[in-house]
């Protein structure tokens, strides 16, 4: 597994938690929508269609590609970023078809539009 503080990162404008409408907030909001499909229901969230399962690395990379475009990046820039992530995954022996080792907990963004 890639250590959390060594993962490939990119700069996005805004606060991912408190700045609805900013690229950083939107990118994370989109990723949260992706992860929600694998989570159970809670007080503020319905049960995801794929709950109980886990995505593959390729599915996560596709979601990342989409989230960066939702945040305003061009497809070419989003693809470049995802390729960096993919290259690092391969360095750690993580293949596209491998199921991801864990699901992130919700980041509990404030404000913005409800996803459900």
């Amino acid at each position, binding site marked *: *597994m890639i250590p959390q503080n060594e993962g490939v990162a990119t700069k996005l404008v805004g606060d991912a938690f408190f700045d609805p409408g900013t690229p950083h907030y939107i990118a994370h909001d989109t990723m949260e929508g992706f992860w929600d499909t694998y*989570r*159970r*229901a*809670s*007080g*503020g*969230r*319905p*049960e995801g269609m794929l*709950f*109980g*399962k*886990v995505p593959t690395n390729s599915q996560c990379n596709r979601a990342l590609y989409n989230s960066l475009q939702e945040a305003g990046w061009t497809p070419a820039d989003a693809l470049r970023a995802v390729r960096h992530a993919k290259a690092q995954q391969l360095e750690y022996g993580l293949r596209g*078809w*491998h*199921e991801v*080792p*864990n*699901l992130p*907990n*919700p980041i*509990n963004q404030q404000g913005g539009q409800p996803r459900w």
Partner: protein
Amino acid sequence: MDTTGKLYTRLDAVFWFSQCGLALPAGLPFDCEPVPDWSEATVLSGGKYWDWVTMEARNVLTTYLDRFFRDEYQKWNGIAEEAKELLAGGPWAKVEAYAKEHELEHFISSCVRWDTLNAVMEAAYERFNPPIFFLKLLEVYESGHFPCGWEGKFPKGRLLVL
């Protein structure tokens, strides 16, 4: 009968929530703190902390499998899909019926589905000696109670049970 088959038999025999609000039995596999009623249990089970704890417990299992038995871990989704189909036709239908009859919040039955599915997953990977949490939680359900929250910094602390 294999481990998973035995677990389905156990799950089919559970009288869901039948002892909620009554005294907790001795011998549960957690240090437990009773919760008085469904009102409090609903707040706890729908809250962020219990959501975090049950996700964390699942992540401990999957991270262990990915780290030490990656090839076996790749079977996770297939096992989960099969388990969901089997559980939906039996235990989950009973839980859903109870939840509907007692007008429980939608996430209560989802909590049960999450917990029981992950118990099946722990059983399915039993031969790899994985860390166990949900199989212990199942013992609480089997006692007729509802595990609904956690007090303290997980994994230390106490299980909150209705």
